[in-house]
């Protein structure tokens, strides 16, 4: 069902490294700082923060996505998986 494929695609495009626009070797500090900055920018409704770049064009970014991305990258196991996927697409 194309429904499933679309869901898969969305998940890939919402890779935390894309959403947070971070390099793969970002430190914990950089992660938290960038996340807080993006949340603040989104709360202030700054236009440039509302989209982020992906290999298939710019996509919409919301504060829930930023929070989810932060949580994912804080967990080292989950971060490992996301790094692997983002690796070939960075």
């Amino acid at each position, binding site marked *: 069902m194309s429904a499933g494929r679309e869901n898969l695609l969305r998940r890939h495009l919402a890779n935390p490294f894309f959403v947070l626009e971070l390099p793969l070797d970002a430190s914990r500090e950089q992660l*938290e*700082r960038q996340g*807080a900055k993006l949340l*603040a*920018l989104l709360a202030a409704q700054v236009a440039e923060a509302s989209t982020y770049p992906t290999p298939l064009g710019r996509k919409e970014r919301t504060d*829930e996505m930023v929070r989810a991305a*932060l*949580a994912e990258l*804080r967990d080292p196991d989950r971060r490992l998986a996301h790094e692997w996927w983002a690796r070939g697409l960075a």
Partner: protein
Amino acid sequence: MHAGIDLGTTNSALAVFDGAVVTVVPNALGEQLTPSVARLDARGNATIGRRAYRFLETDPANTRAEFKRLMGTGERISFEASGKSFLPEELSSLVLASLLDDAKTALGYAPRTAVISTPALFELPQNHATMQAGRLAGLEEIALIQEPIASAIAAGWRADDAEGLWLVYDLGGGTLDVSLLETKDGWLRVVDHWGDNFLGGKDFDNAVVDWALDRLRAGQDLGGMSRDNPASRRPLAKLKAACEQAKIELSRTLRTTISCAEMYTDAAGDPVDVDLEIRRSELDGLIAPLIERSLQVCRVLLDKTRVSPEAVERVVFVGGPTLTPAVRERVGGLFGGRVAEGVDPMTLVARGAALYAATAGLDARPVAVSAPAPPTGLAVRIEHPAVTADLEPFVVGKFLPAAGETVPARVTIEREGGGFTSPETAVSPEGSFALQVLLERHRQCRFVLKAVAGDGSPVALRTSSFSIVHGVSVADPPLSRSVGVALSDDTVHVYFEKGTPLPARRTAIHQTIQSLRPGDGEDVLLVPVVQGEYKRAHLNRLIGSLRIDGKGLKQSLPAATRVEVTLHLDRSGQLQARADLPSAGLSFEDVVHVLVPTASPEVLEREMQSATDRLVDLRRRSFRGALPAVVHRLAGADALLAEARAGLAPARGGDTDAAQRLHRLLLDLNGTLDAAEDEIRWPELEARADDRLAVWISWVSSLGTAGEQKLCDQAVQAIHNARERRDAAELERQLATVSALFDAAYSRHPEAPVWIFEAYESHLTEAIDVPKAQALLDQGRSLRRQGNLEALRTINRQLRALFPGTLEERRKSFGSGVS
């Protein structure tokens, strides 16, 4: 000023945080803890707290405690004298109102916002009820926080050596929450948590009560007094209070007496006093199995997170029952005695909730005080974290010029008291800016924003100052159990994994599996939303269903129509769901809230019986297959079943709490049985192949057509390959193929009709319609005597329709209409 409330099963407390210090607000009696007890007199006047608590033993029909355990069930609690009944959340709101009143006395105003704590394993309906209670108590804005996180924040707030992994063991009156947390670089996050929604101090009390009853029964005739007899409520309430008192005393002494004056009346009608001596060692023996259960919860958590007990830096105890020495000893012993000292287990949660309120930016002060409106200056919106562990956080802002006003060119931020000024930064054409500031460790710092125009002249700003506190930053509250949509094939499409930070929103695409006719809502497609970790949808808890009906449709909606489902969970875990059908241009937001289901004891009994039957069947199969791993797993199922059986009596006696727990146990039991069944499958298939294949092949080769024989050879080869690859599905399919070929060959044998007929004869009782089958059998018998095999074949065909084939359990996955 930020307020946090610990709404506990047994006791509640309220604390406030002013940015520097956390204080627990005492109630009118000067105590920090207010018992979560409500009493209603004959006129309907309510009494809350310690005063009501005194009536628990003397007037149990009008005094209620521990209603937290029933939150979200929709179960009404009745009060005899006044004849009124209340929902648990309504009673909780009375407790909250009393706490807010006490705060008003202390602060001069009643907090308008607060953070309320909930157990980590509370599910969405229960969280929803908690929010409701807050609203009824008069709070304008409420946020929920999970108790272990609150405890961790409070315990780790000032400690500099707080790095590493630590365990919060929160044993309350009704629930056990065990959480593993990690503090790294000042950031606190929940790694994972586990618990038991039905294990708490109450169970300790019940154990003592049971022991006391046994001791009493040995000496005298108690009549029909027992925990599942509703008539024994009053004397048992008295006994329970006495046992509780004794239990608390045994924390300080080695022996005490359970004394209960005029506990019950004997056969002659005289009141009987009860005095039972109990030693600490006896108490320890009684609660040992319960402590062991709690240790098991800890071990499961450590297993899941692959953390050994040695890796845990310290254990934090939360909740009254953890004052019991046996608990501290045994649980602390698991972690080498590394117990965090100097923390008050009774008020930790309330303190943490107040600290969290600061992080969430919830100001408890009345609106007029906290937001004076200066008339002049350029409007600017400043976004910054209220609390952070980052010493150099970003501050972001955006100017909101009115007509005629221009945006400043550059900005800078200064820290009050000196010590830091940010470099001048240009403002973007959009009017936004982002600057880093420097905080002082573990302090609250105030900052001032200054703006200058292009020519260097200062620009007046409407609001220019703000403050940031440096302390432990908390990751967003994580979701306790995965949430997703149940699909028609009994699987779950997970939207939010367990641990997803809240708030969270996700949209996914599905397809309808059936067409939907326009009309008055007869045809309905359900999109069930479930919470839980099981892969099979029906084993998870149903928390709501979106109904897609044909009311707004102008014409039928075909099957395989695209449905976009969006789930949105707010910070407190409140769920909103929406389904969009783009091709029809319709949207559905009708979420049918499912309360925690209250299964009736009869239904539970039936479920338990079928689970028992299944267990027996699986055990037989596992022994036949000589599968020790499965036998071991079934032993676990045995334990669950035993627990379930023990809970059946109180459930029948009207204990809704026990009924809830039994329901949950049965779900877990079915999950275990499913897992066991999966494990048995492969060996059984192999055994079947070994047993029957040779016979089948010989029949096909003697009576099968050329085509069938060739097919049989192919299938046998495929069976061999499937066995090598351990592909159970393929093996099953190929065995079915050979079996079908065998059936065809078998029926060609000249005497086959008679054999088949005789088989039906011997299984007459299994027919769907026995009288009809009987009639056919009579006809068949005379045909057999006559030797008319052709006609007998026809009779066999008719009989076949009356005997069910393999029973395929098709679980309907809550009636899900999407894939």
